[in-house]
């Protein structure tokens, strides 16, 4: 199966938006304009976009603390996201959630998550709804290599399997959980774990959009046609620290630069589509420039937007409740 030019353009645009978004958030955080905990996804773009390219409005995803990329890939509004990260009233969650809790249920984005391993059980729920209502919807749980060691994740593997739920588990293995290497923390293999629960699993090069896209196509189709859950072990790399402010001394000297040079997801995508004459460099360049400008506008809007007001503190605790 082939990607159309339009699909390629959309995919590249989303990857550029994610990269620009994360670089901008990095700069704004460094300048002291963004508070709190911020975890950036730069370097991992091919995973979110390669997988979400197969999803539509029927489908749901559950994300992690490193959620900006998943949000953009699933169609959340980057401007609303930026306002949220700046803690502004018109942010996607009214400024109440922040970077770690961006959600847009209208887009099937069930939330970034501050709890490692919080997503997989919830995604079983989304899959149950889809199955019960017979919507044809698929539910995708993104988890990190670190989150793959959480009991909630294992229990979800089993539940999805025994209930035959339309789930794809995506283990994004960026080599580290905080400062701890996944080589050390993960007993057995991700694919072996999936097989242990009776699910198919494949290892995928997460720097290569096309590899992710292809593996995800099979996993999503499988879930959609009622053949049950499966797992993708996506191997990739994060460029920034665990959170903004992390000096990343646990990485080897020069490691980040090496990956950027050899395995950058955007560079690899460009090279591939130009070599195969699917898109030309001019087109790619203008997509990049548009993304850059759009994200700069998002930052400008977020910087000047209004903060929430006193009255907002106690709204939405319950559906309709005055305490």
């Amino acid at each position: 199966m082939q990607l159309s030019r339009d699909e390629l353009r959309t995919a590249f645009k989303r990857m550029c938006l994610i990269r620009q978004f994360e670089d901008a958030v990095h700069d704004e955080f460094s300048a002291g304009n963004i508070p709190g905990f911020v975890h950036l996804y730069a370097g991992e773009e091919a995973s979110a976009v390669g997988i979400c390219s197969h999803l539509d409005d029927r489908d749901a995803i559950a994300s992690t603390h490193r959620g900006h990329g998943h949000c953009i890939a699933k169609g959340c509004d980057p401007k609303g996201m930026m306002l949220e990260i700046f803690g502004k009233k018109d942010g996607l969650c009214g400024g109440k959630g922040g970077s770690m809790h961006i959600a847009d249920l209208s887009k099937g984005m069930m939330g970034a998550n501050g709890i490692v391993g919080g997503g997989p059980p919830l995604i079983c729920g989304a899959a149950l709804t889809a199955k019960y209502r017979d919507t044809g919807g698929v539910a995708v749980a993104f988890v990190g290599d670190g989150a793959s060691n959480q009991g909630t994740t294992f229990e979800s593997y089993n539940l999805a399997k025994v209930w035959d739920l339309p789930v794809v588990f995506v283990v994004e293995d960026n080599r580290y959980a905080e400062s701890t290497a996944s080589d050390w923390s993960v007993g057995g293999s991700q694919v072996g774990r999936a097989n242990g629960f009776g699910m198919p699993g494949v290892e995928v090069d997460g720097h290569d959009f096309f590899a992710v896209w292809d593996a995800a196509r099979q996993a999503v189709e499988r879930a959609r046609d009622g053949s049950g859950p499966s797992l993708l072990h996506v191997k990739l790399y994060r460029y920034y620290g665990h959170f903004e402010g992390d000096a990343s001394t646990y990485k080897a000297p020069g490691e980040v630069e090496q990956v950027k040079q050899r395995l950058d997801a955007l560079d690899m995508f460009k090279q591939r589509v130009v070599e195969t004459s699917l898109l030309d460099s001019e087109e790619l360049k203008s997509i990049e420039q548009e993304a850059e400008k759009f994200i700069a506008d998002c930052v400008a809007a977020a910087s000047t937007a209004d903060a929430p007001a006193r009255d907002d503190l106690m709204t939405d605790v319950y559906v309709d409740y005055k305490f």
Partner: protein
Amino acid sequence: MPTKSFREAINEGLRQEMERDDSVIIMGEDIAGGMGSPGEDDAWGGPMGVTKGLMPQFGRERVLDTPISESAFIGCAAGAAVTGLRPVAELMFVDFMGVCFDQIFNQAAKFRYMFGGKATTPLVIRTMYGAGFRAASQHSQCLYPLFTHIPGLKVAIPSNPYEAKGLLIQAIRDDDPVVFFEHKVMYDDEADVPDEIYTIPFGEANVSREGDDATVIAFGRMVNLANEAADRLKESGITVTVVDPRTTSPLDKETILETASETGRVVVVDEAHPRCNLATDISALICENCFDDLKAPIKQICGHHAPVPFSPALEDLYIPKVESIEAAVRELVGKGH
């Protein structure tokens, strides 16, 4: 006396107890850090650098980095405690109790009683709490009322570096499971902390200010706000007793009731959500035991009945303020002469 930060006080307490007793081990996520990684070993020392330097001194056998599996490693610490070690496990943020609470409240807390007094469980769980870090709803809660509710658990909430070291050493030597709360915005707070080993007994409140007009009872970080309010009020001639219970289980009821009776006007300050928290508990205790001595209704200054919001504009509204404590005392002092 040397000045040390809250962070240094905890690090020193752990180090001295580990030097003294080889049954003390520590474990947690990135508690040393760099496990299996190609770069620096001991890369983190926990997310706030509190345990930095302990792994190089004591080795990875006693400073154990864990996978992200709280249910397994907190339970493992409980199991090691009941079989002869003295583990200090770090539950990075208390909000993460959600994934491991069974091992704490159904297992560790109940061994001694359920097993007819035949078990001791010298487990310490160090954990971060509190708002003010812009860390949003799942990394900012207090939650110590939930632990205080459970018989069998002891709960310590130090309000300054001096208390942090003394209470932590006491916690490690204690034969019951202790949950030890560290406020995440207090790690750089400084105070005089002796180099020597010392303990602060559980169940003994500290009276940090003495006065005649009102009693303010506060917990953890709120003690500092209460002290500040007391100092401000003194300028206008109102003197306040400030009580820092230091542990909520066991609770120094005597000091609380005595100081409440003496002034007859009580403010309780608790950063936690207002329902079923420490303030409601202490207020009930006072009403039940010294109602006749009260000159005015008790005031409770707490967080709000809402998740902790991310936006700084909202989070600042969420957290109790020195000004609200001051105003509450002034209001009470205007009553009941």
